């Protein structure tokens, strides 16, 4: 009896392993097959540790890629796909994986991947790469950056016209060239419509410190600022918390969100005045499309601004009055016509302020 059941067990084991082996074999062949079709376009992206459902950057990029894939009848998983990184050390193996699988365009989402892209792009000169929010100088890398100053200018206009105390605040994540673009644009927008207004500026030196964001916001609201624009990622969550607490106590305070429409973050107290949206999806879709059409912008910096919808003011506008929206549209037009050049650095802002 015993022996029989043992035998049966062994037999099942064998059967199982042969099934596994068979599957393995099939896979190998199909892998080889798909590699053979040269004309099918393949595009892949590597997420940073935030993952593809981070409600921010990665998610937006994936939405753009999905749209591109669907429009071009590509199949998810073989035509367009994403690879998730659990740790920072996974960036390189993931980029390598796509490069080895001969993807025509490989996107790295987020500036943290810059060094990894740089290295992998040097090794795989025949593949095309792109990086979001950072410049990597390689002939086969397209650097996707945004004119955050333009979108920030628009929300600055809203803040300048909405403030009742003539005082608004700006909370930055880390003091860097990137966040300076937000700050300069915002200040310029406020001053354009309300030269009297004062803009308080403070950096948390952290993108993930909600408690710091809350402390800074508390200080600013305490100094009678009634609107705070944050460009501080997770730190901004604290700004929302502080604003909601104050609104519960009857104070009239607002927050301006960043990167995407942050109206939900302000609920239920409804403290989100508006948001500056950065359309990573539009940028990703555009670069993928250009690459497919044989116009890969290798070695170039591709800037996305108001003109091409890369940055904009958020679609939910319930908290902004009609008059202000008309003003916003006016300035939008001026920027697109090139009448206003929005400052992106401290020096440019000084020159701008002097010209007012």
């Amino acid at each position, binding site marked *: 009896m015993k022996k029989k059941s043992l035998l049966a067990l062994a037999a099942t084991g064998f059967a199982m392993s042969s099934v596994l082996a068979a599957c393995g074999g099939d896979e190998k062949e199909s892998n080889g097959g798909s590699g053979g079709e040269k004309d099918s376009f393949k595009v892949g992206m590597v997420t940073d540790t935030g993952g593809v459902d981070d409600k921010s950057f990665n998610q937006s990029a994936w939405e753009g890629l999905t749209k591109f894939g669907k429009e071009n009848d590509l199949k998810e998983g073989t035509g367009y796909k994403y690879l998730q990184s659990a740790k920072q*050390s*996974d960036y390189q*193996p993931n980029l390598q994986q796509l490069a080895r699988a001969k993807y025509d365009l490989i996107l790295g989402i987020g500036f943290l991947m810059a060094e990894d892209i740089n290295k992998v792009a040097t090794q795989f000169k025949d593949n095309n790469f792109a990086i979001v929010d950072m410049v990597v100088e390689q002939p086969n890398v397209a650097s996707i950056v945004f004119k955050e100053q333009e979108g920030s200018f628009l929300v600055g206009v809203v803040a300048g016209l909405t403030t009742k105390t003539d005082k608004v605040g700006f909370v930055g994540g880390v003091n860097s060239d990137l966040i300076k673009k937000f700050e300069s644009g915002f200040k310029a927008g406020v001053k354009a419509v309300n030269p009297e207004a004062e803009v308080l500026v403070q950096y948390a030196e952290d993108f993930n410190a909600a408690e710091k964001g809350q402390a800074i916001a508390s200080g600013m609201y305490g100094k009678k600022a009634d609107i705070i624009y944050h460009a501080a990622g997770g730190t901004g969550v604290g700004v929302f918390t502080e604003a909601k607490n104050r609104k519960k106590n009857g104070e009239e305070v607002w927050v301006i969100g960043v990167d995407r429409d942050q109206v939900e973050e302000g609920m239920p107290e409804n403290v989100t005045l508006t948001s500056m949206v950065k359309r990573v999806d539009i940028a990703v879709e555009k670069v993928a499309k250009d690459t497919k059409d044989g116009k890969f912008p290798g070695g170039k910096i591709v800037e996305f601004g108001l003109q091409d919808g890369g940055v904009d003011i958020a679609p939910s506008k319930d908290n902004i009055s009609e008059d202000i929206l008309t003003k916003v549209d006016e300035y939008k037009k001026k920027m697109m016509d090139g009448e206003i050049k929005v400052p992106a650095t401290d020096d440019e802002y000084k020159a701008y302020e002097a010209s007012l």
Partner: protein
Amino acid sequence: MKLERFYGILIPILSIILGIAVGAIVMIAGGYDAGEGFYQLYYGIFGEPYSIGETLRATAPLIFAGLAVAFAFRTGLFNIGVEGQVLVGWMVAVWIGISFDLPTAIHLPLALIGAGLAGALWAAVPGVLKAVFHVHEVITSIMMNYIALYLTNDILRRYIGITNERTETVKESASLASTFLSELTDFSRLHNGIFVAVLAAAVFWFILWKTTLGYELRAVGFNKSAAEYAGMSVKRNIVLSFVISGVFAGLAGAMEGLGTFQNMTLNASFTGVGFDGIAVALLGANNPIGVVLAALLFAGLNIGGLSMQQVGIPPELIKIIIAFIIIFVASGYAIRLVIDRFTTKKDMAKTSKGAGK
């Protein structure tokens, strides 16, 4: 009852097989093709020189973290603070790596020693608290992890300097990078740290089994009271065990700082190396060879798991497999019972047969 001798090996191997089997069930339940998944996993570990290189690259810090946990465990202590010790080791290694200009023969050892000392210092805190005040080391060492996480971020920002959320790259004279190993493995990030790690496993064995100190440490681990009765200082051994464990952990950080990344990034959350170390020590049965093998396995699973995404299987599945392997190892007692039942019956059957003749 000859099987008894093989339990040490049998239980981990059975656990691995069972863990992978559960992984297969989860894949099938999730509607994925398990065969394809395992093929990709295999390919992701052994398929190309690059993946072999990356697997070995990921092995080095895991060996150190595993040795750190195992060392403390040999003295009957749980060092759950490896994660924090990794972080301080990483930071000090990078700091030495970027701020001095020295010949390699001095710079690299200095950076490694610095990392080891930093880890030791960090581990000494729970060690002393345990020895002097009898504060449970699990609690203190866990809490030290959080202190390390936020303190290193702050020191990096304040004193070491951060651009784009990372430090400068360490000088070449302090780097573990090896052009030879990298080119051999098709430009993976494999670095000389793997040799240091294997050497450390030998040192681990030497200290514990070839020195008086090691004998004392193990004696305390077996039975504190007996050790004290025999004239050994339990307090001293507890602190020493933690300190040496911390050296291993700090060096795990040096593997990342001087090898894999060549810099340090601001960490929003733990690296996971220290926690994986607990699993490695457990699967490796706190034995140096076992730790090296277990580190290889987990590194392979982690790197190979990335490839499973090629067929749409989320890399989180690997974490499920690892978790189940650990559960099975931890419940090794149950497996032992089952084996015992089968073998005793067989033995009995044999003897009764024999008696019948």
